[in-house]
C-alpha cells in the first residue's frame, strides 16, 4: 500500500471508524488444551494466541527467586503473520524488547509472592499482524493468566492510541485516534502502546514512538483508559462464558 492521501476524513477513518472506536473484538478464554491457561483474541484483523504455564519449576534453576515467582512473557510473531515478506522465525531485537516490557506489565499485577521459587511463563504468538500486536497480546495474556487461575490484583487491558493526519472540511488536520491498524501505524504520526489495570486505574505499560504534543498525549491517554475499561468487560465476559 502506498502512502494514503488521508488517514481520516471528516472524523471518519479509512475503515469507517470514528477516532474513539476500537476494532471489533473477539475473545475466547480457555482456547487451548495443554496449557494451564490460554486465550485467543482478535482485534480487527490482528489475531493473537496466548498460553500460560505455571506456577511451575524454574529452568534454568539459577533464575529462580527465593521469595517470589518469576514472570517470563515471550512475544513472538509467526513467520506468515506479517504483511509483505515472510518474517524470519526466531526472536529479533524488537521481540526481545516487547517480551521484556510485556513481562514487566504482567508482573505488576500478578501476586508473585504467593509462589516463591517458581516461574509463570506466558507465551504470546501473533498469528496475523495488523498493528497493535503487543497490546492485543497483553489483553490475551491477561485472560490466559486468569484462565490458569493465577491470582492477580487486577486484569491488564491494553490498547494502542496515536495521531494521524487527514482532513476536516478540506482543511488538513491531525487527529488523536484509538486502536491503530496497520495503515495508521505505518503512516501515522505517533503510536502509543498502553496497558492499564482498569480497577486499580494504573498504567502497566507505556511506550511511544513518533511525535505528539503533551495535550494530544493526554487526550489519547483518556481515550485509552476509556477503551481499556470497555475491553475489561469483554475480558470478564469471555472468562465467564467458559463456565456457562
Amino acid at each position, binding site marked *: 500500500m502506498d502512502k494514503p492521501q488521508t488517514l481520516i476524513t471528516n472524523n471518519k477513518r479509512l475503515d469507517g471508524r470514528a477516532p474513539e472506536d476500537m476494532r471489533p473484538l473477539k475473545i475466547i478464554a480457555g482456547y487451548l488444551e495443554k496449557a494451564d491457561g490460554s486465550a485467543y483474541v482478535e482485534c480487527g484483523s490482528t489475531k493473537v494466541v496466548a498460553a500460560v504455564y505455571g506456577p511451575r519449576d524454574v529452568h534454568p534453576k539459577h533464575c529462580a527467586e527465593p521469595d517470589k515467582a518469576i514472570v517470563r512473557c515471550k512475544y513472538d510473531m509467526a513467520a506468515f503473520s506479517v504483511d509483505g515478506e515472510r518474517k524470519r522465525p526466531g526472536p529479533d531485537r524488537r521481540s526481545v524488547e516487547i517480551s521484556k516490557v510485556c513481562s514487566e506489565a504482567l508482573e505488576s499485577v500478578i501476586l508473585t509472592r504467593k509462589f516463591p521459587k517458581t516461574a509463570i511463563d506466558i507465551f504470546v504468538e501473533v498469528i496475523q499482524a495488523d498493528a497493535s500486536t503487543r497490546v492485543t497480546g497483553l489483553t490475551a495474556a491477561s485472560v490466559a493468566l486468569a484462565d490458569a487461575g493465577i491470582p492477580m490484583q487486577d486484569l491488564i487491558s491494553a490498547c494502542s492510541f496515536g495521531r494521524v493526519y487527514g482532513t476536516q472540511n478540506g482543511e488538513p488536520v491531525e487527529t488523536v485516534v484509538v486502536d491503530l491498524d496497520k495503515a495508521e501505524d505505518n503512516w501515522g504520526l505517533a503510536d502509543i502502546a498502553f496497558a492499564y489495570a482498569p480497577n486499580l486505574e494504573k*498504567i502497566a505499560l507505556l511506550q511511544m514512538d513518533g511525535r505528539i504534543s503533551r495535550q494530544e498525549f493526554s487526550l489519547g491517554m483518556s481515550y485509552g483508559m476509556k477503551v481499556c475499561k470497555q475491553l475489561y468487560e469483554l475480558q470478564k465476559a469471555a472468562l465467564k462464558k467458559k463456565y456457562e
Partner: protein
Amino acid sequence: MVMSELTKKTILTLASAQERIDGRGLQDFRTPKITTGIIPNAQGSALVELGLTKVVAGIKVGIGTPYPDKQEEGVMATAAELTPIASPDFESGPPSPQTVELARVVDRVIRESETLDTKALCIKPKEKVWMVYLDMYPLDMDGNLIDAGVLACMAAMLTAKLPRYENETVIYDDLKDPLPVSLKPVSVTHGKIENTLLVDTTNTEEQVMSGRYTVGFKEDGTICAMQKGGIATFSPEEIETMLENAQVHAKFLRGFLP
C-alpha cells in the same frame, strides 16, 4: 549485585521522606560533562560523565543498500554493549534484554525526533546510501544509562563528519561534511521507589526502585519517545507530573550538547 538490607531499608525510608541517599533533591539532575571527538578512528564520538556514570558513544559510517520501503534514505542503526568493565552485574555475551531495550530506547528518542536528515544520506536511490552506526559502551555504571546514552549519541552525531566518497570508495582520512543533524532531542528518566518519583537515578537507587519512565523531547516541547520500564505501575497523574518535570530537565540537559 548483593545489596545489604540496611542500605535498602535506608533508601526506602529516605524516599518516603522525599530524600535521597546521595543528598540530592528528588528533582536534582546530576550535571553532565560531555567531551567530543575523543575517538579519532570514529567519524564522531563523545564521552558523557553523569556523576559516576560514564558512557562513550562512537559513530562509524559506511556505504550500504537502503531498505526496500525507504529507497532514497540513509540508514541509522543504534546498538549498545553492557560489558563487565562497567559493572559486576553485566555479563559478557550476546545482548541481554536490558541491553536491547537500552539501545532501542536511545534509538527511538533520536530517530523519532527526525533530527537526522536521512534523505541527505542518499548517494544513489535504491542502490547506495550512507549507513550511520551508533554504538554505546557504558564504562562505569552509576545509573541512568538511557539519558547518558542519548546525550553521548547526540553529542557524537552533532560533531560527526562524513568522509569523502569517490570512485566507489570511502576515503576515511578525508572527513568533509558534517553529519546532517538539525535538532537536539534529549531524554529524561524518572525512577519510582514505592510512591516517590525521582529523576536521574544512581545505580544504588536502581537496585531498589520498582519502575522507570523515560520521555524524549524535541526543543519545541514535542514528545518523541516514551518508555515505561519495571514492574511498578504509574497513575495517569504521575505520568503528567513526570512529563511536567521532564520538560524542565530536558532544557537543562540540552544546554550541555555541543
